[in-house]
């Protein structure tokens, strides 16, 4: 009997709320962050960055900077034009996609503020940064392109003159007869929503260190993707893949921003090759705000057709997605991840999705927590509340009339996905109970009745998402440049301790704990006896890394399979030692025993020792229990849930305060409920941040005005409510552990819940929308105009930089 999909009967680690074993070192910083690693002789790099959104570089004079004390070399883009190659884009979404050249350091033209133009290498970081001021660059300014709709107009200024257009691609998906659905539809809602541009704000800034060893190189980087980065750097630089080792040491957060091949990584490698010495670069926060790829930035035009009873006929989605100045690793594909999610959890007959990628003179966009799916979920969940208001129905009831019933799974959606499992009814019932929905509706009515200056609104978000990226065949059909499998290896040491090697690359997710829990159960060894190794291509040679809530749903399955192979090998040794047939052995709690003779047995540790000495093994058996496995999922996983937000809106000031927030998530089987809880809390914080706080703002000249954390507001615990969380558990049927991803769910679900709550509070005042982030001034202006702000992306009161003086008041950053 092999271990079953549910695991050995004595499963006691999976499901246990273990505190994360990696946290002590991560929280104290007594660990290997990239910037903490400084080999003898390390040189430090600083980048000179474009102050213009768009300009021709007519001259770069690096000679004065070369004379600066401590400077080793100064290079401009043209100095290394022949060897720097171009940064890769691995997702060519259409055959005719416009794909401009993207040099790691600009050579002839700059196209966003912050684009690297030159670099200084010096003996210390101070000298490098001081010398930047002595590089002389002449620019011939060109027109900034800051508005997507203007960028597509006839005669618009071009970001890339050679392309002849600012449109990178148009991608279309259609299913069903949308014209028929719209024709004579009793209810047609047309809305325009703007997903503002966001700046991923990982706690650890980017950092890269490249150490040359002869003709070989070890590159340390604060990255989510050591394996992909290694392949891409080999491709860009021509350094053979096997001469290049990439290490992601402990990494302090990424949220997609470190799913990238950055110019600074390429330059560090080239500098180490040129100079034969270790070189290091660590960004500052204000530098990072300009140059880490940004997220979101879409204009959504939506048309929803429905019956008078609220049933949806069809949905038309027309998107403009801001690519920024260049296409980076998966830039063009990000909005398309939403293509399959605009229908949400609802049944409809017709669906049409069109997305155009647009170039602007802004920082390139790419994956940010949720990546395409928050945008889609926002649109459909806002529309469902709009539909409820239009029909004077409760927003929960409108959803009930449209969602897929729990008995209808597996369900093929109008967007062509097959949802394997789900129970929207149970999650919603649970959420309504935790929220005390009826009591809050009564409170809302009472405040409306007495014209309370602080009104109450209730927002609903019944979401699903696709994650566990991804079935390789599906990625292939979308022209993505890689597969979606994941790899794991299990090494059983002579003492019976276990080393797990994973191709996932944790950067805060707690894999070291969760993977040890899975392994402990599958092998029947103590949790403490498992060590998880990751993030180093010399240690973990195969992997697809961590993004898209894939690590457990793909990598966890690979690990589980590798463990099962270990048990199978051990069984053969056990049968031999016990002089019994393999089929007569039971395996439970790490011990093989002869069925019916429980005192006759061998532990997995004894078998490990036997395999090590190899003195008495069955004929033809390799003396090793080590195993590996590669798992390619057949389907995505589809976490879902119901989030409810009650928001208080101060109608005199426009201030919004979250009064109550309930999140019921169904992420299938749970390995570690504490980790799940942490993911949900963090996800909620980021989703709420989009609704209320965060926005990357560019002025008309293309300057980013939110370069500091005084201007780009990231909420802290002090700004967030106490979250009430709950779970339902509908196992995924697409993988043997029944697990679904949890990394992005909170972010995806929460943004529309909050905005729906704000709009719900203000409907009696004639407000039907407030643009994100719903700042106090925007809410106040929506109240005054009585019609909402119509989703304008421009902040109120102009785009003047500098909230603040010495970062705090008006003149601060001028």
């Amino acid at each position, binding site marked *: 009997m092999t271990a079953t999909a549910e695991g050995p009967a004595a499963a006691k680690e999976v499901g246990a709320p273990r505190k994360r074993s990696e946290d002590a070192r991560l929280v104290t910083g007594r660990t290997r962050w990239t910037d903490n690693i400084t080999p003898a002789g390390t040189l430090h790099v600083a980048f000179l960055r474009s102050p213009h959104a768009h300009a021709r570089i007519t001259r770069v004079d690096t000679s004065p900077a070369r004379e600066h004390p401590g400077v080793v070399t100064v290079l401009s883009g043209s100095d290394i034009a022949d060897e720097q190659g171009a940064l890769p884009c691995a997702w060519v979404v259409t055959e005719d996609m416009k794909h401009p050249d993207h040099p790691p350091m600009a050579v002839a033209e700059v196209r966003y503020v912050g684009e690297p133009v030159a670099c200084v290498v010096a003996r210390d*970081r*101070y000298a490098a*940064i*001081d010398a930047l001021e002595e590089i002389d660059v002449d620019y011939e300014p060109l027109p900034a392109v800051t508005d997507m709709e203007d960028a597509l107009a006839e005669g618009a200024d071009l970001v890339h003159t050679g392309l002849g257009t600012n449109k990178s691609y148009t991608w279309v998906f259609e299913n069903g007869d949308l014209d028929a659905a719209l024709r004579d539809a009793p209810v047609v809602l047309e809305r325009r929503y703007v997903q503002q541009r966001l700046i991923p704000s990982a706690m650890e800034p980017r950092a890269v260190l490249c150490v040359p060893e002869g003709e070989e190189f070890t590159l340390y980087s604060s990255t989510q993707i050591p394996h992909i980065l290694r392949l891409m750097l080999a491709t860009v630089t021509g350094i053979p893949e096997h001469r290049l080792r990439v290490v992601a040491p402990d990494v302090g957060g990424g949220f997609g921003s470190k799913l990238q091949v950055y110019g600074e990584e390429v330059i560090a490698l080239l500098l180490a090759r040129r100079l034969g010495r270790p070189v290091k670069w660590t960004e*500052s926060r*204000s*530098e990072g705000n300009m140059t880490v790829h940004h997220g979101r930035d879409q204009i959504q035009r939506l048309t929803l057709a429905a019956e008078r009873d609220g049933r949806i006929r069809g949905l038309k989605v027309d998107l403009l997605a801001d690519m920024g100045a260049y296409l980076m690793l998966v830039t063009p594909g990000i909005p398309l991840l939403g293509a399959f999610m605009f229908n949400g959890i609802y049944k409809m007959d017709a669906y049409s999705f069109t997305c155009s990628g647009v170039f602007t003179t802004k920082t390139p966009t790419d994956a940010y927590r949720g990546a395409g799916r928050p945008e889609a979920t926002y649109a459909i969940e806002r529309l469902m509340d709009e539909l409820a208001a239009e029909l004077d129905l409760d927003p929960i009831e409108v959803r009930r009339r449209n969602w897929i019933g729990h008995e209808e799974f597996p369900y093929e959606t109008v967007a062509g996905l097959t949802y394997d499992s789900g129970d929207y009814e149970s999650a919603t019932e649970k959420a309504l109970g935790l929220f005390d929905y009826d009591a809050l509706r009564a409170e809302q009515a009472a405040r409306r009745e007495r014209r309370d200056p602080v009104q109450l609104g209730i927002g609903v978000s019944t979401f699903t998402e696709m994650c566990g990226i991804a079935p390789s065949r599906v990625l292939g059909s979308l022209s993505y440049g890689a597969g979606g499998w994941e790899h794991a290896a299990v090494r059983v040491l002579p003492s019976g301790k276990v080393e797990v090697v994973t191709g996932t690359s944790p950067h805060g997710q707690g894999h070291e704990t969760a993977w040890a829990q899975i392994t402990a159960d599958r092998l029947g060894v103590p949790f403490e006896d498992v060590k998880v190794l990751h993030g180093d291509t010399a240690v973990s040679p195969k992997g697809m890394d961590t993004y898209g809530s894939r690590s457990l749903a793909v990598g966890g399955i690979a690990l589980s399979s590798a463990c099962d192979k270990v048990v199978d090998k051990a069984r053969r040794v056990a049968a031999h030692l016990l002089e019994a047939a393999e089929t007569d052995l039971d395996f439970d709690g790490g011990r093989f025993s002869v069925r019916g003779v429980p005192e006759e047995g061998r532990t997995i540790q004894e078998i490990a020792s036997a395999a090590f000495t190899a003195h008495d093994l069955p004929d033809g058996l390799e003396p090793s229990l080590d195993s590996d496995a590669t798992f390619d999922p057949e389907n995505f996983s589809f976490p879902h849930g119901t989030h409810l937000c009650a928001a208080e809106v101060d109608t*005199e*000031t426009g*201030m919004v305060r979250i009064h109550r927030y309930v999140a019921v998530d169904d992420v299938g089987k749970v390995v570690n409920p504490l980790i799940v809880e942490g993911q949900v809390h963090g996800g909620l914080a980021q989703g709420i941040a989009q609704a*209320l*706080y965060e926005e990357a*703002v560019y002025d008309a000249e293309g300057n980013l*005005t*939110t370069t*500091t954390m*005084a*201007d780009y*507001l*990231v*909420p*802290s615990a*002090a*700004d967030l409510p106490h979250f009430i969380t709950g779970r339902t558990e509908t196992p995924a049927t697409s993988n043997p552990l029944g697990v679904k991803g949890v990394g992005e769910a909170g972010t995806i679900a929460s943004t529309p819940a909050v905005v729906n709550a704000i709009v719900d509070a203000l409907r009696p005042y004639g407000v039907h929308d407030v643009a994100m982030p719903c*700042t*106090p*001034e925007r809410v*106040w*202006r929506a109240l005054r105009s009585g019609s909402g702000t119509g989703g304008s992306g421009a*902040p*109120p*009161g*102009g*785009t*003047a*930089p*500098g*909230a*603040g*003086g*010495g*970062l*705090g*008041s*008006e*003149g*601060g*950053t001028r």
Partner: protein
Amino acid sequence: MIPATFDYVRPGTVDEAVTALADAGEDAKILAGGQSLMPLLRLRLAYPDSLIDLDRVDPLREIRDEGDTLMIGAMATHHQVVRDPLVREFAPLIARATETVADPAVRHRGTFGGSLAHADPAGDLPAVALALDAVFLVRSVRGEREIPAADFFVDWMTSAMEPDELLLSVRIPKLGAGWGAHYEKFHRTAQAWAIVGVACAVRRENGTVGEARIALTNMGSTPVRASEVERAVAGGAVSEAAFRSAAEHAADGAEPPADLHGSSEYRRHLATVLTARALAAAAS
């Protein structure tokens, strides 16, 4: 980013500090906790030739009862001020406002005097000092002088102190029985600067307002005294309606900034709403 090169001096006494400041010339900066200055240095928005660190000048941390006034040493940390029993009893407006400054880490390093000398109109304490008619005691090698709060804040991040003058302490007239105080801070996140703040103290007298003192944060290049409102409520009823009516004039004469967090128009509106609320809270 990281700062440009500077000289660093760490005096142990006030005399040494004043001498160091005189010697250093015009391009010296006092480091008094560093919570505002260090970000400016790191972003290379300020390039002082030298920093004079007051961290070791312990006498400047003292908070003392001087009869009718309270003396708060320039180097008293925000944390120290918030917890000080004298401040809580005789200058509750300072305690309340200081509690809202940034976050605990900043409040442990940042100082009362540093914050005032920085003269950032978006900072919380300048408006408080103005409302309380605080008096600033400054010293240079040329001698000591006192500067009333009404004269201290000259322009955006500019005080009336000469480059060679060091802020030693601030005298706060005590608010006795009958006074209530409130700091109404309006900001988007806990760590963000006030879009508008209202520092308010009210003395009640026989069920009416005996006297009110009101100053506004981030409504101009300096903290702004809302004199019109003070006059309008004095002698009037303690009532929400009266406060709202008087507060209509809160932004009179102010020239509030416009930035990402609020337009001038919005700040004017906020000033009226928040002033009425601050009056009601202080009078309750």
